[in-house]
């Protein structure tokens, strides 16, 4: 029995070392200047801090890669989340979006923040500063709604 445990332990360790050599295409931070939502609009501070902490690590080209982003298999998950996150919404490319896409995304933001599907629970588990209380969620929703209204004017 002891031998089996030792064998499994060594096999797992070996697998862990080996997977570090599998190439992982981690998305970079190459943003187009002047297109970020922060460069285009005035975002109230009570909202901006939460957008940066809770959203920007997947939904922008200003990602702060966490320490585990270079350790497989966590690095694979980080890369996948960033790729998928940017595909849905990229705050760094906000200025390149059409008005209709901006409006749709603002509605999406307010719905997902309201339904607490965003930020992802797995992300907030690792990042305490990304956890949003109801007051902070309300502030983001209010901002998204008023920004959408302002875009229509």
């Amino acid at each position, binding site marked *: 029995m002891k031998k089996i445990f030792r064998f499994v332990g060594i096999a797992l360790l070996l697998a862990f070392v080996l997977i570090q050599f599998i190439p992982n295409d981690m998305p970079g931070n190459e943003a187009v200047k002047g297109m970020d939502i922060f460069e285009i609009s005035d975002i109230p501070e009570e909202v901006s801090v939460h957008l940066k902490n809770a959203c920007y690590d997947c939904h922008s080209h200003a990602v702060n890669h966490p320490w585990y982003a270079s350790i497989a298999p966590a690095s694979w998950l980080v890369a996948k989340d960033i790729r998928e996150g940017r595909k849905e919404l990229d705050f760094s490319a906000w200025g390149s979006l059409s008005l*209709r896409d901006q*409006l*749709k995304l*603002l*509605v999406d933001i307010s719905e997902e923040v309201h339904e607490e599907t965003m930020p992802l629970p797995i992300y907030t588990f690792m990042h305490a500063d990304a956890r949003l209380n109801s007051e902070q969620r309300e502030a983001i929703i209010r901002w998204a709604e008023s920004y959408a209204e302002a875009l*229509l004017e």
Partner: protein
Amino acid sequence: MMLSMISLTAFAFLLFSAFQADVQSEKTMSVAEATFEIPEDIQNILDKSCFGCHNVDATSDKAKKKLLIDQMHELSKIKLVAALGDIRETVENGDMPPQKFLDKFPDKALTAEEAEKLKDWAGKAADDLLK
């Protein structure tokens, strides 16, 4: 006596303001309604592949929460643009109708031509609303 007169005037004023606000909101609503109409060919596609789950009397709460085709005209302009964007995105990604549903009802699948038509319409309708 004077006090009653003032109170009566204030009450009448409040009543008038409330009435005006109602008229105003009705106006806004009718503007939105007037500018949004689903063309017959698109309605036929929606009826075939989407309406079964996305109408007020449907059974799936999840589908109803996402989109109610028969209530789209009641949405605010922003929500309507977002709903049209969702339709476009969903069709583009091939996410709708869901595979599980298509396994049971393969004839409800969107043809490539229908998908293209739906996407074009959703984009154009959103742009028209924003003109």
